């Protein structure tokens, strides 16, 4: 399609994009101001001074640094577990023909869309029974379990593009399933794994529900739940709260801008088959 859009439409698109960014730009501007400056002179005034105090205070006193660390402690092991298990599951689903392959696949696919809140009561109970409630292990275990469906679904579609003859010749050469998975399937799935890793990092890092349900000690809470606490605690100091939220988004933003291509690939891999 080589049709060009009229300058008017292009102008509208640009206006819409700037409007879309405005909440974030506004948040950034307000995070650089003092509360007094904002309340006395209002948002549209020219700030008397630009300050990073809100960031410093949010980082240290309000505990954002601790919450961020917790988020990493929860996210990274979950991510590792998901990648290992889903790549194995996807390999098995494609490599072996068995009667249950389709039902299992549908189970993965369907439960991936169930509202997670539905599961919170039994999960809460299970976490108590396993003795992991209010430890890092609880969200790690459940994130790994719940995200497996999506990851397996995407990787399975990826695996199917690999010609079966490749596996067969490996078998002929005397390679066991373990070796084939590690030496052949994994390297070929690499782009898929990258897409999943980016997406799952973002999702797990951004999770709110499980941090809320499975952790009660403040010193274990991930950044999302911590932020909600912060909002309750510093109820009137919006520059501080907003600065904290912007700090909270930094890791996902860095991952996103670094690996944007994979992020988008992952989102659409689940939806379309090219």
């Amino acid at each position, binding site marked *: 399609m080589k049709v060009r859009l009229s300058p008017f439409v292009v102008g509208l698109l640009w206006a819409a994009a700037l409007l879309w960014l405005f909440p974030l730009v506004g948040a950034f501007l*307000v995070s650089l101001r003092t509360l007094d400056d904002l309340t006395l002179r209002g948002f549209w005034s020219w700030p008397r001074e630009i300050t990073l105090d809100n960031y410093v205070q949010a980082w240290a006193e309000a505990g954002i640094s601790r919450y961020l660390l917790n988020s990493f402690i929860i996210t990274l092991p979950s991510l590792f577990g998901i990648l290992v298990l889903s790549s194995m599951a996807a390999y098995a689903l494609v490599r072996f023909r068995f009667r249950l392959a389709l039902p299992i696949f549908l189970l993965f696919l369907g439960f991936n*869309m169930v509202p997670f*809140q*539905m599961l919170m009561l039994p999960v809460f109970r299970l976490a108590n029974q396993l003795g992991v409630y209010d430890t890092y292990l609880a969200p790690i275990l459940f994130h790994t379990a719940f995200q497996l469906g999506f990851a397996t679904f995407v990787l399975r579609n990826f695996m199917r593009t690999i010609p079966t003859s490749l596996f067969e010749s490996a078998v002929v050469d005397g390679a066991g399933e373990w070796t084939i998975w590690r030496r052949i399937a994994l390297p070929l799935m690499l782009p898929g794994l990258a897409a999943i890793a980016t997406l799952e990092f973002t999702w797990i890092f951004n999770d709110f529900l499980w941090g809320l349900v499975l952790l009660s000690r403040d010193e274990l809470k991930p950044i999302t739940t911590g932020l909600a606490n912060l909002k309750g605690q510093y109820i009137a100091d919006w520059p501080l709260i907003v600065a904290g939220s912007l700090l909270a988004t930094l890791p996902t933003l860095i991952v996103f801008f670094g690996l944007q291509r994979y992020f988008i690939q992952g989102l659409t891999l689940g939806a379309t088959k090219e």
Partner: protein
Amino acid sequence: MVYPTLATFALAFSDWDGVSPRWNWVGLENFARLFRDPVFYQALGNNLIWVAVFLLLPTSAGLALAYLLNHPVPGERFLKVSFYLPLVLSPAVVAVVWSWIYHPQQGLLNALLAAVLKGLAALGLQVDPEAAYRIGWLGDPKLALAAILGAACWRQVGYVMLLYLAGLKTVDPQVVEAALVDGATGWTLFRRIIFPLLAPITVIVVVVSTVDSLRSFDLVYVMTRGGPFHSSEVLANYMYLSAFHDYRMGYAAAIAVVLFAITFVPIAFFLWRAVKEEVKEEG
């Protein structure tokens, strides 16, 4: 995930309080109470409004954006990133940032409105710019739900746009060129050729939007906790509050069952399509 789902169904028939080790089987009592509970109907109604809005606004905006951005546009990359950036942010972060935007005195939205009113006043109209600061977006029962939906749509548009952009890539340029040769342009081209070709994506967008809107929790919980007076309540939030504030786990499980029953419709439809496709591919 199968186990917790089944367990939820079992819990719905119990009076478990979440703390004590044992509980009693109470049959349909939780459901009987639920169907007499006005808050439940409020939450259910709000969830349906949520579904309707999600099926209407972010979808059409996302489709329009994807269609336009599929043309050569100066600054295309910047434009795309602007629209899907909110998608990368955690809903909890979005909730906090938008709570600030909606704050009556310190927030962005009322400051913006006041500036507009000031402009109108300067033109000689009888308006009071200070009136803008009296609007409590999240504190007013009439506005809270719409305010939360605004933030939710802000985050969702980029997702729909990405899905449609991916779909547009699969549209055969030859078909479009043939249509152009036949004299189809603009709106006709879009309505008669491109939109029908995007049907598979549209199905996905509809399923995703419905499921996402039924899942809504983070924004509601962080922004209003369902208030004021349950005016922005949704099932997921009501369920959380029943379980972890009122310690009525059985009752919460009953809400979960209702939520599951509703979500099951789009999910079943989606799975049915997936099976059909599998069978087709297996030949």
